[in-house]
């Protein structure tokens, strides 16, 4: 199992494959540490498509609760 934080400036719904994993941040704006199965996983965000990359395939497995793996999305300029 891998621990992952999905970084994006706003609170957004996170999708792994085609399934929702809830939001990337909690009500206080803190990043939520997601529990993701090891191996190749495709991440994307819900809501407006004003971000890049549109989706990214990531090898999950390197992150822990102390030092989660980071999947970063940028807001389009």
């Amino acid at each position, binding site marked *: *199992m891998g*621990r992952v*934080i999905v970084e994006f400036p706003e609170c957004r719904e*996170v999708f*792994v*494959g*085609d*399934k*929702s*994993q*809830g939001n990337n941040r*909690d009500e206080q704006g*803190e*990043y*939520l*540490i*997601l*529990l*993701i*199965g*090891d*191996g*190749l*996983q*495709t991440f994307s965000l819900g809501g407006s498509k004003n971000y890049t990359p549109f989706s990214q*395939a990531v*090898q999950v*497995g390197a992150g*822990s*609760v*102390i*030092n*989660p793996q980071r999947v970063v999305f940028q807001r389009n300029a």
Partner: protein
Amino acid sequence: MTLPRLLFGFALAALLGACSPHFVNGKLGRFDKDAGYRYGKLSGEGNSDNIFVILAFSGGGTRAAAFSFGVMEGLKDAVYNAPDGPRRFLDDVDVISSVSGGRFTAAYYALFPEKFFAKFPSAFLHRNVQGDLIRRALWPLNGFRLASSDFDRINLAAEYYDETIFEHKTFAELIAKRRKPYIILNATDMTLGRRFEFTQDQFDLLCSDLASVKVATAVAASSAFPGLLSPLTVKNFAGEGCKYECPKWLTDALDRNNPIRRYAHARDLWSYQDPKLKRDYIHLLDGGLGDNIGLRGPYVSLSSNDSNWSLYDKINQRRVRHIVVISANAKTKPSKDWDHKQAAPGILDVFSLVTGGPMDNYSFETVQLVRDIFDRLKDEEKAWTDCKQLLQDQCSGKMPGVLSPVDFYASELTFDSLDDEDFRHCMENLPTSFYLPEDTVTLLRQVARLLLMQSADFGKIMRELDRAWQPPAVQIDPALRAKVCPS
């Protein structure tokens, strides 16, 4: 009617049967990920995912069915004070995964929840299923039917279960009910040697509609013990197409750069769709061969996102706070006298070992895998909480993220937990059969309830839900015990 005319009639019936193949499953017109028997389509009154309860019922013929029924009786009696009033823990059950004997209990509960406790004993537990099946097989007309290439002993068993126990119900009935728990009836794919479940997620891969499949057929598939009953054959319509859309997790898992267990699991699933493999017919055997405690499917959901009811998904969505797994494992440990004799064990003993031995070892490992994943998640949560505290105290710092707290409880109910050695020995030597005397069935029900109420993890979750909860007293009837287990 004269005998020759009667025989001609039988022969004609058999010939016609052989000419028009009959499949137990139908084709799916068009794939629809939101239709059919799936976890996401079910709900339960007041049963949210907050407390996620998984039951796993093992194989073991009537012994396993009676044992799992006793667990259900215990869950019914385990009442706690919920915010909106008294609530039975039974009503919090989300998923029941079962194999072989345990499937009768699971399927009957899913189909007939209202009359389950009143009728299941007479409908199945007290019935001489074994004797009835033998009588049916020996009936002359069935001799002709069995001569047909698409009707075998397993079809005869399915027909019997359909008429006498499951009242001709199909999975359409379960879809229409839209009611939790989600029932997973497991068989074993002979080619892959892996679990095959009767859910729409599995049948999508075959481009087949589970709705038209009789529940009795699914139950029979899992009791197709090698040698005793023939395999059950289902048609794979994938070659004819249904516009199947492969879930993204499966596409990702088919990449070679995945952990080998994930990749192998994905390849097995894809084999039903892969046109190169031409798997037009899928032959199913006893579910116990692939997993004799029914925990393998839940394990995938408990340890990955690779399932439509993944617990990882639910934890991430912060919808689940407590995860409870209760495994009703009616495994036995029959005494062997081989080691007292120089003569090698006979062919039946060897057959029994090669079919049952690996199954038991694998079951033990599966339970351990579930415990390991729970332990790891608990350890991680503790490490995170400790680090957070340390950072706050020592550096006024913050952790890089927030963890959703989840509690995990795993109870494995087996005869191993019986303190009294003689009683344990008696229970562990009960036969695996589709007929047990009524006293033995009643005793098994009492033992199951006792083991549930004595389970440390079950007590923990009940007290977490209701601090004042006390387990109801469960007594083993001494007279019954003396009758079933004479000293």
